[in-house]
């Protein structure tokens, strides 16, 4: 019980429950299975990006190129399928994921070989990847009519269906299954493999990891390629969800949400601490906040304000905790 109270996740879950309760009181239409299925469908992609971002953050780095990687992977995959005349979802995934892995490797190369701060590298490569695509692949959006059918059917595919009173069906999207698989794999890597513990250790003291005989470079390649891979997967999910591929679309909008969700979930922006559960709860919180402020009768313009507020508070709390701790160790150590 005491352990539960010390956990950031417990409080976050509590906040989510209270928030949901408030919405339900104002608008009973909120608390329906359909609404939650809808939430799962709409936010699974964001959650997958958040998981990737969380892994980088743990290692003490930061990667802000993932929205660019996702849109480049998506747009090239869609256009390749159209150009080749092949309507195959697996091929789309293969193309998008390969692009993600390759871009991740480029990031890792600059970060590990030239030792450039990760924020600067990924800020630069995000523009590089996206700009190159706009120049060499194209800027024209692919609309629903042109979009290969496999994307559309993937977007509509449900794991199971339920029926409304009027007999029409709704269901839990396959996207949720993708999220569950990604989350389980990531959990296993972080919690149960040496590699995962090294990622945590790197966030605490990367020089110590190096001295213990680990090639930090290869760990960094794994981390940034993994984020790239997840961004590639999300790119395909995204186009299947909105049935439209606009090469300028997710580049800006997802970044803030993902960062806010991960920080809210308790991951330290300085690296080395945080949990996967926290990250997923953070995504849930941000998604519910974003989609349901309207239900509370609050203007949707406030959305951005609230996400920003959450980010500022989350970062401040982590920093205060850190300062309190380092102050404790300054002059008055005793035990």
């Amino acid at each position, binding site marked *: 019980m005491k352990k539960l109270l010390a956990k950031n996740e417990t409080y976050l879950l509590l906040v989510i429950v209270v928030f949901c309760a408030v919405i339900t009181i104002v608008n009973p239409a909120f608390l329906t299975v359909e609404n939650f299925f809808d939430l799962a469908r709409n936010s699974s992609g964001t959650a997958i990006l958040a998981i990737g971002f969380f892994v980088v953050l743990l290692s003490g780095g930061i990667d802000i190129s993932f929205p660019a990687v996702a849109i480049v992977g998506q747009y090239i995959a869609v256009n390749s399928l159209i150009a080749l005349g092949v309507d195959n979802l697996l091929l789309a995934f293969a193309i998008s994921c390969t692009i993600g892995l390759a871009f991740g490797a480029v990031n890792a190369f600059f970060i590990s070989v030239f030792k450039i701060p990760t924020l600067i590298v990924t800020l630069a490569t995000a523009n590089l990847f996206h700009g190159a695509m706009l120049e060499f692949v194209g800027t024209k959006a692919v609309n629903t009519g042109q979009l290969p059918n496999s994307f559309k059917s993937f977007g509509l595919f449900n794991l199971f269906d339920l029926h409304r009173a009027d007999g029409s069906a709704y269901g839990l999207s396959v996207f949720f299954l993708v999220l569950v698989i990604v989350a389980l794999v990531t959990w296993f890597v972080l*919690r149960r493999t040496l590699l995962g513990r090294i990622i945590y250790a790197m966030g605490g*003291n990367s020089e110590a990891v190096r001295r213990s*005989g680990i090639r930090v470079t290869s760990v960094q390649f794994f981390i940034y390629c993994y984020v790239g891979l997840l961004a590639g997967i999300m790119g395909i999910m995204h186009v299947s969800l909105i049935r439209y591929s606009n090469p300028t679309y997710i580049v800006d909008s997802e970044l803030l949400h993902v960062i806010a969700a991960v920080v809210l979930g308790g991951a330290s922006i300085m690296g080395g601490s945080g949990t996967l559960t926290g990250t997923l709860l953070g995504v849930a919180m941000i998604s519910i906040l974003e989609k349901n402020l309207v239900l509370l009768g609050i203007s949707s313009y406030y959305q951005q304000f609230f996400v920003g507020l959450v980010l500022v508070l989350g970062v401040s709390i982590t920093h205060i905790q850190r300062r309190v701790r380092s102050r404790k160790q300054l002059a008055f150590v005793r035990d």
Partner: protein
Amino acid sequence: MSANFLEVRNIFKAYDGVQALNDVSMAVGKGEIHCLVGENGSGKSTLIKIVGGVVEADRGDIVIEGKVHHHLQAIDAIREGLQIIYQDLALYPNLTVAENISLNQMIERRTRLVNWRGMRALAAKSLDEVGESIDLDESVQNLSIAKKQIVAITRALTHGARLIIMDEPTSAITKDEVEHLFSVILGLKQKGIATLFISHKLSEVFEIAENVTILRDGKKVGVFPAGDLDDEKLTFLMTGQRISYSPFAFDEKRRSALPVLEVRRLTKARQFNDISFKVWAGEILGITGLIGSGRTEMALALFGLNRPDSGEILVDGKPVRVGSPEGAKRLGIGYLPEDRLSQGLFVAQSIGDNIIVTIVRRLLSKLRLINPAERKKAELHWIDELRIKTPSPRIPAFSLSGGNQQRVVLAKWLATNPRLFIIDGPTIGIDIASKRNIHEVIRGLAASGMTIIMISDEIPEILHNCNRILVMRKGRIEREIPDAALVSGEELFNLVSGKLFDEVR
């Protein structure tokens, strides 16, 4: 097969044109306790990093158990049974004690999957072998430095090591803990595990080492059986100069009517209790005591960094309130902090900027901008005055040696022209020659009329540089020694550790 576990042959290493190691060879036998000594900047740490495979030598070989390694990698060194406890400990602050102890072994054995229960069991067993108990699930960042050190040592022992290298392991622990560490090292010897001990505290070297290798300026001076050396000889070999001490004497005729500082019944709960003393111009008042005796906490209170609960501070006989370092500075109080790297220096900023930071207001032109000519004058004046060894005031402070860094911190405070200068741990981590130079500077300041309070846990430092001594213990002033010349090192040591006190009882 030779009897040596480790041999280092003709190592050369240069950094940016500076020859850090110049044809250095040394050997450590199986189960031997060997000590590597040398002043800061003599190349000890570089040599250790090369032995550990973390830094590659320009030339030379590392031979482990007769096997020659031209390009030693860190993981190879570990697999050959070599464990290094670095000065910075190289722990993972965000992970638990159990993980810190077990993780490196998993890396060594290429264990791909984590078995949490096995990991805890291993950590518990290892701590048990060292005779310590620390909460396995505590995050290492919440431990005291001494406990962190124990975790680092335990981790090194977990590996089935054949040689353990300890880089300045006693820098942050108390006398008792040092004794405990030594008993651990002797226990290792019984098991045939060698220890290479790196230190610049002379007494320790004699207590534990069998053989001593001495480095000076990147060259090997020689290797000696510890029994053939004494304090003076070792100092001479390390520094190339003979050093003798003469105590600091205060001329009683110069004692003014009014003390510069008087402290009356200063108290802060759980830190210090009922502290009263006076200090006059031209004195060097020594305050000594163990870590946790309240010495630093009390000094911080005088400098406005630690608000006391009750009591009075009087400057020139007038009661004052010291609410902030700014206020202290206005009263003419300067403070040289215990930890110069985190509290005394802007390590990434230039030497010049560090020096002028306290007096920037005085260097402003009519337009309220920094006057470059005045600034340069001030910087060069202090570099010259304190003999800071640097080609230019513009290079960053971290590129200096410990002794020179400390001189920069001194310069920064001397520039404010303080009347009362509180110096906390003036020579921690500083080599002998620089130490002496800093002591001379401090005595010179007192002779010119400045009031000095020197806080230190190094008994000889206090004994040789102060005219009056306060001994603190458990937050109180245990004893005032009015004339430092009338007390011996041993008596003072006993007072500090509380032995004499207990005997009287």
